[in-house]
């Protein structure tokens, strides 16, 4: 028999660590989602000429880059709500700490705004720019000329913006996983760099899922569905590697692994993440592809639920 007693009651630490609640896993999900949107927008934009020949890209796919800053703003709001010392939030931007993934993330989030917004403006058509200029707030603030100049700037730098979106999107997606991975010395369930690519691929998949909910044209939808099916397969493989990593680790790592195989997160993980979030939507997508069935919102919605659940369960596993 061994009994361990600790005489202490510290805020958010005792009786068990509860420092990070819904704010963090929602942020990690939205960060991944924004990364997915950026990567898909960049790939779409790089194939823009091809798409133009196949039949002009739908206005929704051209407007997609604007989704990234909206999604990331919601995510940053969640992050802000998590801070305990909210008035000091500006301290993130008076320092760059090369060893802290959170510092990298803070700067990536800031850099993402100009890059995504300019990319969106770069693909607007003339009549869309005109209607934006007559949009009330822009008219009142007399920002029409500035808007037109930004659109021209975006158009001129299109190639650079596309590559910047791809690079920042990849960086953002990987960082959401590495953020947890870098804390691995104390949190065995996060003690894996595989979380970087895992969250990146999951982010790509949820990004594709979100875009599939919009009325894209047939070719665009078809392509997203195909990419997404591959992303799901890759995500399953990465989950496998994540578990192999934990299984071949030390006692701490194997205790973390236990949580997914018989422990308290087992039912939630295998039902919500693997079945509902990956296998069911994969089956639906493959069936839609083979039988040529009209796609529904079901698979994308399940993928988004799976994306949130993955972050929730991985974050909980580390804090447990």
């Amino acid at each position: 028999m061994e009994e361990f007693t600790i005489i202490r009651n510290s805020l958010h630490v005792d009786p068990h660590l509860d420092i990070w609640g819904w704010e963090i896993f929602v942020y990690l999900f939205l960060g991944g989602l924004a990364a997915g949107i950026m990567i898909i927008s960049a790939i779409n934009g790089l194939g823009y000429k091809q798409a133009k020949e196949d039949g002009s890209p739908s206005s929704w796919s051209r407007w997609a880059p604007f989704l990234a800053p909206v999604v990331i703003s919601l995510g940053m709001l969640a992050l802000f709500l998590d801070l305990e010392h909210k008035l000091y939030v500006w301290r993130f931007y008076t320092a760059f700490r090369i060893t802290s993934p959170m510092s990298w993330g803070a700067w990536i989030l800031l850099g993402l705004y100009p890059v995504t917004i300019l990319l969106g403006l770069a693909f607007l058509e003339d009549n869309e720019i005109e209607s934006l200029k007559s949009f009330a707030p822009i008219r009142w603030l007399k920002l029409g000329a500035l808007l037109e100049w930004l659109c021209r700037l975006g158009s001129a730098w299109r190639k650079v913006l596309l590559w910047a979106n791809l690079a920042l999107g990849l960086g953002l997606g990987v960082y959401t996983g590495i953020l947890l991975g870098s804390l691995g010395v104390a949190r065995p369930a996060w003690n894996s760099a595989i979380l970087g690519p895992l969250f990146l691929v999951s982010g790509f998949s949820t990004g594709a899922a979100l875009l599939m909910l919009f009325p894209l044209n047939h070719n665009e939808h078809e392509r997203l569905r195909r990419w997404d099916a591959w992303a799901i397969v890759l995500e399953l493989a990465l989950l496998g590697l994540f578990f192999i990593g934990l299984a071949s680790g030390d006692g701490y790592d194997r205790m973390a692994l236990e949580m997914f195989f018989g422990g308290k997160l087992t039912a939630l993980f295998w039902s919500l993440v693997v079945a509902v979030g990956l296998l069911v939507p994969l089956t639906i997508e493959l069936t839609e592809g083979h039988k040529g069935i009209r796609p529904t919102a079901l698979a994308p919605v399940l993928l988004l639920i799976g994306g949130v659940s993955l972050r929730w369960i991985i974050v909980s596993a580390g804090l447990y």
Partner: protein
Amino acid sequence: MSTSKNNSFGRPGVRYAMTMDTRRCVGCNACVFACKAENALPAKGFRDWITYTVKGNFPALSELIRSERCNHCSNSPCTTNCPTGASHVGPGGIVLVDRGMCTGCKACIASCPYDARYVHTDGFVDKCTFCVHRVKRGLDPACVSACPTKALAFGDLNDPDSHVSELLRYRKHTVLKPEKGLDPNLFFLL
């Protein structure tokens, strides 16, 4: 015990460490109360604490009592993971938090395998400072001064004549979770 005459604070090459004698400690919590009073900690904030490990089956029981706190690791993940530089290594290797730079993101709490940090009710993250304000004046940390059984000792590990160096030279000792490889500076004498 160090006095203001041999104040080592700020001298280059100093590496502060603490030893905790598990054979002397009776678990009276004087170190905890001294710390709470010295540093005006909130009710739900503990910079040091007592742990009891009871082993065996009645009546053949053994008990190990420890006074624990931040290990002031020489290889500290709480400082490398801090996004603003608020959590930093101060003079003599003391790990400190600059509360004017702390955003309360809690990355340092998550990265500490010893759970030595907590969120202060005023929002910043707080932890043991080895009573740096006392050490600056050549005094021992409050917990060391208050210990009625002299189970705690504080000093410069790089000074071969310091009390801690002497204790570590002659006594069997261990650190917590040595397998984490963080090079802690809180030693438990066995």
